């Protein structure tokens, strides 16, 4: 059950930055992600100056810490998102002038937890069809519902769904896990 190693344009670019301090690869990453991070920052701060500060700090971290990116743990976009989230969190804390207290480094661990067995989902096949689950199924986030319909109702393989929706295999699997957990939670609520 080896972890999937992500490969793609941004994952490759990050490894060039990490290994060769490759400026061309970094410039590509920058010109794609900086404008998107700015939009994200505008949404979060509602203020251009702070949004730009967040972009600058985030992209500086991407440059400085590229060696920490591990393609077996996730996509480049996931890694960049987590950096932006942490930068934003610490910026907000600093603005509220809180000292010695909770920081992004405490809250979000950027390391490997020990490997876990992939919990099987086969026991859900029949349960899924029951009337009890149907309303919850409809309330799943659209992206997850779509993957669930293809896997459980149209009985397609994870690989087929990945090809059909043009999303990575890992995303298909993670959407199934998220959806199953939501359904499990919904069932627990109806039971108690």
């Amino acid at each position, binding site marked *: 059950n080896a972890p999937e190693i992500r490969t793609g344009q941004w994952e490759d670019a990050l490894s060039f930055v990490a290994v060769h301090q490759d400026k061309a690869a970094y410039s590509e990453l920058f010109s794609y992600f900086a404008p998107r991070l700015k939009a994200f920052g505008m949404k979060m701060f509602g203020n251009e100056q702070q949004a730009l500060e967040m972009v*600058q700090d985030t992209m500086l971290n991407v440059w*400085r810490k590229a060696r920490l990116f591990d393609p077996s743990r996730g996509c480049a976009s996931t890694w960049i*998102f987590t950096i932006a989230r942490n930068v934003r969190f610490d910026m907000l804390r600093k603005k509220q002038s809180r000292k010695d207290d*909770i920081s992004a480094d405490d*809250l979000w*661990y950027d*390391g490997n937890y020990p490997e*876990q067995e992939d919990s099987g989902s086969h026991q859900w096949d029949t349960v899924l069809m029951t009337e009890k689950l149907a309303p919850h199924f409809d309330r799943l986030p659209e992206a997850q519902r779509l993957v669930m319909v293809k896997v459980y109702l149209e009985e397609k393989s994870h690989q087929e769904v990945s090809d059909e929706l043009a999303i990575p295999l890992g995303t298909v699997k993670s959407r199934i896990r998220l959806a199953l957990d939501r359904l499990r939670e919904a069932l627990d609520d109806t039971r108690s």
Partner: protein
Amino acid sequence: MTHAVKYHPGIPLLEQYVEGTLEADVALAVSAHIDLCPHCQQLCLDLSAEQGLMLEKSAPAAELDATDLDQMLADIMAQPQWNGRELNTQPQGPVQVQLKDKTFTVPRALARLVEQQTKWTQLGSIANAKLPAGDKRHVSLLYIDKDTAIPQHTHKGLEITLVLSGRIVDEKGSYGVGDILINTPDDTHTPRTLPDEDCLCLSVLSAPLQFNKGITRLLNPLQHLFY
């Protein structure tokens, strides 16, 4: 420590935690739970991947000053990349905390705060150490010796309890290491330890507890123990 965690924060809370929109002290309890819970570790990886994908597929900002960005890019690439030592700034693993002759292990998320300060206040079989989380809520380690009941109380605000060692039970369930209990205002319960097992928890409280019965109401002024 291979027993399964039974009580989780729930997906909406995990989502806010991953987005970074959850309040810091609540996020701290969620983070410590995740350190102890492989199930939620996986869910958080999945939720982060969804957030990353949203960022990748999102539209770029409408208003962009190209010279600003070019300048930013040049400034960044003029900086050196970090060496191995600078890269490791995070608390890496669990730490030990000492209470009299007992030693407990607390998760990574609490490591830095616990190392800054653990000053215990003790009353009978209960001890409390406030952590310097410095937020609206009170964050503390709460130790309850074996065979002890916390008198019945009602919550005036949110109460989050994460079991770090041992076990605690109340009217609604039995909670072991990693289990998280979330009590909302007006929930009433009487948590207690088992006859042969003490308990260390992380407690996050947004308002003092209100003790309900007879003489225990005298505890209400002694809030510093629980708050």
